[in-house]
């Protein structure tokens, strides 16, 4: 069976075709770099994504700062991870690079602040 993919690793968005028989990947074609094949194999077995969101900041020049995951997580864990992110409340000043949740949901990915927010 042939399956079509649009690679999301980089903005090139390669159109990749994978041939799969009985759960085995026979061939992967169309990618312009090795990450494309890796992406398709991952996508066929256990798709992973990163997400970004915001968390509350008390006493800051903005009411929220932004956060992102440091590593991709299984796609079906996105909403459980969002629930954890939503519980976080920080106090200004906050600095980009600060880890606010280590190993979130045991997924070996951290939730990291991506924006400096100064105190008001």
């Amino acid at each position: 069976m042939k399956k079509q993919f649009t690679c999301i690793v980089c903005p090139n968005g390669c159109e990749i075709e994978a041939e799969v028989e009985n759960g085995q990947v026979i061939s992967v074609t169309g990618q312009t770099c090795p990450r494309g094949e890796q992406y398709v194999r991952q996508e066929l077995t256990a798709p992973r994504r990163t997400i970004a969101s915001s968390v509350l900041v008390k006493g800051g020049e903005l009411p929220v700062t932004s956060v992102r995951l440091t590593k991709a997580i299984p796609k079906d864990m996105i909403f459980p991870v969002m629930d954890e992110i939503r519980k976080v409340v920080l106090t200004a000043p906050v600095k980009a690079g600060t880890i606010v949740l280590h190993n979130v949901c045991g997924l070996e990915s951290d939730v990291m602040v991506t924006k400096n927010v100064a105190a008001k």
Partner: protein
Amino acid sequence: MEQKDVVIIGGGPAGLAAAVELHKQGIRNMIILEREAMLGGILRQCIHDGFGLGRFGESLSGPEYAQAFIDEVNKREIPYETSATVLSLTADRVVTASTRNGLRQYQAKAVVLAMGCKERSRGALGIPGERPAGVFTAGTAQAYMNLYNRMPGKEVIILGSGDIGMIMARRMTLEGAHVQAVFELMPYPSGLPRNIVQCLDDYNIPLYLSHTVTEIHGRDRLTGVTISEVDANRRPIPGTEKEYKCDTLILSVGLIPENKLLEDAGIAIDPHTNGAFVDENLQTNVPGVFSAGNVLHVHDLVDFVSMESEALARHAAAYVEGKGIDPCTLDVKCGEGVGHTIPQKVSGKNDFNLSLRVRNHYRDCRIVVRQNGVEVAAKKMKKAIPAEMIQFKVSGAKLQEEGALEVSVE
């Protein structure tokens, strides 16, 4: 009036990259004027990742990408003024700005236009119906959520398949809203294919092509929209109307370079890009005024904005130092299938970076540059789509000093 070598209008990705590169080129007497209270421009609210893959080799969020340049600006002690709105620019490069310390005027040797772009709004589309609250451009909704912690609504319809609209479809879904569908007027998506996958498909949000909103309902707050299919001429087909209940309509229907300032200075605007006409030095028709980034032509990727601004800075530095830049008299014309090009003028002597967008979907095509009928550069493409800007280098060695260039899809 203060004398400056360079005044940079805009402290977003284009202005920041230009400032850092100008500093590297030895320019010291400059200032960045930024309208917002903080540097960083639109990147401050683009909290998703995917920025910097080209430039830093890793996937950063918008704020991190901006901070990397802000840190450089601070390290190099490049002066900037925030909450400073430029009110006018003249052909002899006098920049007037309203600042926290009152009106300021600068006489600049060179001016860098780096004001970015604005979103096309409901008014520009002329959608009939009532005028309730709940209709937002995608960028406004993004600012509400990511900067001010305000949720625009719960039941969402998105018109337009621009990248920001798709990114907001995912963002609102993650925060508990129900995004019913994205409707696109054109027969093809306007955003990047990867965003269709990771922002729509991942969350089972359907994308309907050749559809548009034909009426908006609701007195105080939006209660619903009418959606119609459109024909090949983008006209709604009678009898295809469907009602959708929603409290929020997000518009992601195009970006327009923010070029109001150019009028007073007499800077010519290309109707295809809505940005200035520029030559291979990214100089406008007014000597000493340069333009790059989204104010010149709307980009897909900030990495390319930075690179374009850095190229601009090298030319602007040469101009300021009186090294002179070659006069550019040869037109670059859009041939078959090409919507616009940057630059629109070249000297015929130097290598230059050509940026363009095609007008349709093409497979296994070549983008060809011809001068006097002779092929002088080409790029082979597996696919070429309007959503993706195409860039490649044209070598000056093959160019003649006379004869317009024409770029076409073959």
